[in-house]
C-alpha cells in the first residue's frame, strides 16, 4: 500500500519505543515525502523493567537513559517535533479522563493533523496504551465529523484478528528497514534482546522479527456517528 501525502501526521504513544516498534518505517516514509510528523510521547517509560543483570541502570536513572534513547530514535526516524508530555509510566489510566482528552485536543488544535497514529483502545494490551487510545478517540469524536483527522490505530492484543479482522492499512516499510532498525537500536535499554546477533534466533523468532522490520499494520479507526 502506497502512502498518501498528509498535511501533518500526529503520532501519540505513551512510551519511548512504542513508536519504533509500531511505526518507525511509516514515520520515516512520511518524513522522506516531506510530511511533517509530530510525536507526542506521554511518558519516559520510567517503569521499564529491563535494568540488566548485571544492571546498567537503576529505577531512578532509567528515565534519563530513555529520554536520550527517544531523542536518538527520533533522529533515526527523521522526527523534528518531539513532545515529551511529562506523565509517568503506568499512571496514564489514573489521570483525570478529561485532562487526557484536553491534552490531545490541544495538540490537534495546534497542529491540525490530517492523520493521527495511536493505539486501538480495547486491543492495545498495556493499560497506558489503552488510556492513550481512549483519550485520542474521545478527542477526535468531539470534532465535527467532516473535520476529523483519520486515525491509524495499532492493535496487537491476542484477540485482535478475531475481533477486528485483518488490518486495513498495511505498509511495506522494507525500503526503510535500516532506519527502522536504527530507531529500534536507539532504544537499546528496551530492545537489546531483539537486536542482538541473529545466530541464536529460532526460525519462529526470525520470522516474527522480519515482519516487524518490513511491515507495519494499522486499523483505520471509525466512529459510529
Amino acid at each position, binding site marked *: 500500500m502506497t502512502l498518501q501525502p498528509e498535511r501533518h501526521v500526529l503520532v501519540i504513544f505513551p512510551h519511548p519505543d512504542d513508536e519504533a516498534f509500531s511505526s518507525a518505517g511509516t514515520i520515516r516514509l512520511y518524513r522522506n515525502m516531506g510530511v511533517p510528523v509530530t510525536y507526542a510521547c506521554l511518558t519516559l517509560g520510567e517503569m521499564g*523493567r529491563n*535494568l540488566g543483570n548485571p544492571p546498567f541502570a*537503576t*529505577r531512578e536513572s532509567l528515565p534519563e537513559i530513555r529520554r536520550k534513547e527517544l531523542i536518538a530514535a527520533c533522529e533515526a526516524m527523521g522526527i523534528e517535533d518531539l513532545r515529551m508530555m511529562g506523565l509517568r509510566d503506568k499512571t496514564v489510566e489514573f489521570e483525570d479522563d478529561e485532562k487526557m482528552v484536553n491534552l490531545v485536543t490541544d495538540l490537534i488544535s495546534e497542529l491540525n493533523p490530517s492523520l493521527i497514529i495511536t493505539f486501538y483502545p480495547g486491543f492495545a494490551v*498495556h493499560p497506558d496504551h489503552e488510556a492513550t487510545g481512549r483519550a485520542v478517540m474521545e478527542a477526535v469524536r468531539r470534532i465535527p465529523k467532516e473535520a476529523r483527522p483519520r486515525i491509524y490505530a495499532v492493535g496487537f*492484543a491476542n484477540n485482535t484478528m478475531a475481533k477486528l479482522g485483518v488490518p486495513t492499512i498495511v505498509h511495506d516499510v522494507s525500503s526503510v528497514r535500516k532506519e527502522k532498525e536504527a530507531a529500534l537500536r536507539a532504544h537499546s535499554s528496551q530492545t537489546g534482546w531483539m537486536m542482538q546477533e541473529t545466530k541464536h534466533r529460532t526460525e519462529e523468532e526470525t520470522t516474527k522479527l522480519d515482519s516487524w522490520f518490513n511491515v507495519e499494520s494499522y486499523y483505520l479507526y471509525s466512529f459510529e456517528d
Partner: protein
Amino acid sequence: MKEINVNELQTLLNSFANKDVFIHLETTNGSYASHYDEKFFNAGAFIRNVKIRYELGKVVGESPHRVGLKMEHGWVYAQGITHYQSDEQGRLLMAGLDYTGKLAVALEISETPFSY
C-alpha cells in the same frame, strides 16, 4: 547497582533509621505478563514518595534477600532483593532483578523526595 553485600547494606539501612524518609516500593510482573500467558494472574503494587520513619531496618537471608522496616505503627518489607546502590544523591536504591535482568521488586529510601 551491585549484588547485595549484607554487612554494607545493613549499615546503609541503619543510617536512615529514626529519620523522616521517603520510600519507593514496587512489585511488578510487567504489563505484558497476561498477554504472553493468558493464564497468568498479573498483580503488583506501587507506592512512591510516601514519608515514613522506621526504628529498625533489617536485611535477611541468602540472595534473593528480604528487607524489612519496622515502624512505630507497622511494617514495610520487600522480598526478592538482589542488588543495591547508594546513589550520588545519597539515596539507597534496592532492587530485585530476575535471571534475565528484569526488575521484579524495588525498595528505595531517600531523605529527599524522589522525582515525580
